[in-house]
């Protein structure tokens, strides 16, 4: 609790800076938003009228505080292109992206933890080299390439999964999972390499500690040493990396959602950028960055909950 209070000013400061940066990034885009909305060849009077209506005649800083004020109440404006409320548009698509991201992280962990455990306990062996080699190769594959070849193998050639499309979980849970599996897998394969590499190094380090030798001397079976004694201390750094890598998952989701035609936030962002829907872009970027900062803040707090040493040192 004290930890929370101590870190709160930092969190608020970061979020303020993030919102300002987002506003400036989109606010300084070349081209008059009013002209962009109305299109070329409209009378100057109409443009001036729209500029007044959008409040574009006021100073940048005033507009920032105005925008921030309404953003805090959950109002990110209304897209002039689609007529949708930005916040509604994001919330409507959010479940897809969250499901995709969570499935990807879980899949990656489910694959990475056993592989890293095998790799670490036989460090230096042929098996370890093969596993590390696969991890190394996976790090050299762009996410979109992974997605395309998963489609090629599992959707086009084998026909096990649909290549594109999305069915909400509430309509048909099974179809939903079938549709989500390939996109989640293509995200997971990239994360997998990161998690595996880190966990392997960490485990090798942990396995050299005295208490592991003690457990061995007591005659504990090695799988039990690995799962009960070695994995837990190594899970701290894994947790941090999962939090930090969330940015990678979100970035990957933009591309993967576009390839698999999933109605998620990432695809919305991409489409909005193509259409130069500035208000929508601004809203989504703010939303994503805020979520990212908050999640990492929570990860930071979890860290101190799990490890008492951090709690008192900070």
């Amino acid at each position: 609790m004290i930890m929370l209070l101590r870190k709160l000013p930092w969190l608020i400061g970061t979020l303020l800076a993030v919102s300002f940066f987002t506003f400036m990034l989109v606010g300084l885009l070349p081209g008059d938003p009013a002209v962009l909305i109305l299109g070329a060849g409209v009378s100057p009077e109409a443009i001036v009228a729209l500029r007044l209506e959008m409040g574009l005649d006021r100073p940048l800083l005033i507009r920032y505080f105005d925008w921030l004020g309404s953003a805090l109440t959950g109002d990110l404006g209304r897209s002039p292109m689609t007529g949708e409320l930005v916040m509604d548009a994001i919330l409507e698509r959010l479940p897809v992206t969250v499901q995709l991201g969570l499935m990807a992280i879980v899949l990656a962990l489910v694959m990475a933890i056993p592989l890293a455990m095998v790799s670490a306990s036989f460090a230096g062996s042929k098996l370890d080299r093969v596993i590390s080699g696969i991890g190394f190769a996976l790090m050299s594959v762009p996410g979109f390439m992974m997605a395309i070849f998963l489609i090629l193998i599992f959707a086009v050639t084998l026909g096990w999964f649909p290549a594109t499309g999305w069915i909400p979980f509430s309509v048909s849970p099974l179809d939903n999972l079938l549709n989500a599996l390939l996109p989640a897998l293509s995200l997971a394969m990239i994360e997998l390499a990161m998690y595996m590499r880190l966990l392997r190094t960490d485990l090798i380090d942990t396995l050299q500690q005295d208490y592991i030798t003690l457990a061995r001397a007591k005659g504990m079976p090695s799988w039990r040493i690995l799962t009960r004694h070695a994995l837990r201390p190594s899970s701290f750094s894994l947790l941090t990396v999962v939090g930090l890598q969330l940015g990678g998952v979100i970035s990957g989701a933009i591309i993967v959602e576009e390839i698999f035609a999933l109605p998620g936030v990432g695809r919305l962002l991409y489409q909005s950028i193509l259409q130069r829907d500035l208000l929508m872009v601004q809203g989504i970027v703010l939303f994503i960055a805020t979520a990212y900062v908050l999640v990492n803040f929570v990860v930071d707090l979890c860290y101190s909950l799990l490890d008492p040493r951090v709690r008192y040192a900070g």
Partner: protein
Amino acid sequence: MPVNKHPTIESRAQNFARALQQVFGRGFGPGFWLAVFWLVIVAFCAMFADWLPLRDPLDPVIANRLDGPLSGSLLGADGLGRDILSRLVHGARVSVVIGLTAVSIGMIVGGALGIIAGYFRGHFERALMAVLDVILAFPWLVLLLALVAFIGQSLFAISTAIGFLWIPAYARVARANTLSVVQREYVLAARAMGATTTRILVREVLPNVILPLLAYGLVAMGLVIIVESALAFLGLSVEAPQPTWGGMISEGKRHLATAVHVALIPSITIFLTVLSLNFVGDRLRSRFDVKESNL
């Protein structure tokens, strides 16, 4: 041992030879040289694309549409009948130029900021770290898409945007290394001898900080090529008709069911290039003993 204030040319040459011996002396294994060989080919293609005896990468020959490899031309043709080999070679130019420029921008700007922050500490360091935290609060593709929308899609603009993404990472490494270098006796000695701040920064700090930065450069370049290809895949890298590897995959995606090679060949090219960069970078880094924890 006498302190040699002005190293002679001979002793410098000896040092250089020793350094070379250290780096290349013991075997790297055939894999390393294979990777180097591939990178040399890619670099050669990027440099001499215009002079190589290849078909026009932009010329659509309808008769060749979706030709497989080894039928007429070495690697076949894409959905518009354009020669894939020629497009690969010309696409190499984009990847190599953006790879080099973006990493240089990140290294120079980030490195300079990091060294200054690590040396002078104080308000500047705190402000810089805060700004870097804010930049890192944006997922990379989100930031990149916004930047590209802002500064356009020319070769230089894309390089700058991707280079910008690398500034935080390089600034952090440079700062961390500077912090440890400044503690060393030779910096103290230089200061005691009355060396100016500029001289200390350039002659004492920089040479010791630049090695880890350079060692990380190749791996960074691999990541830049991945980022650029993702951007090209989304159609937001250097604009058509300039061929790019990512753009070729995007085009090949449409013919996945009928002509796999259109997407497969550029994919393999990207994979091999990034793999080679990672491999060579990793080996050099362990040879120079740059600790990963510094990054």
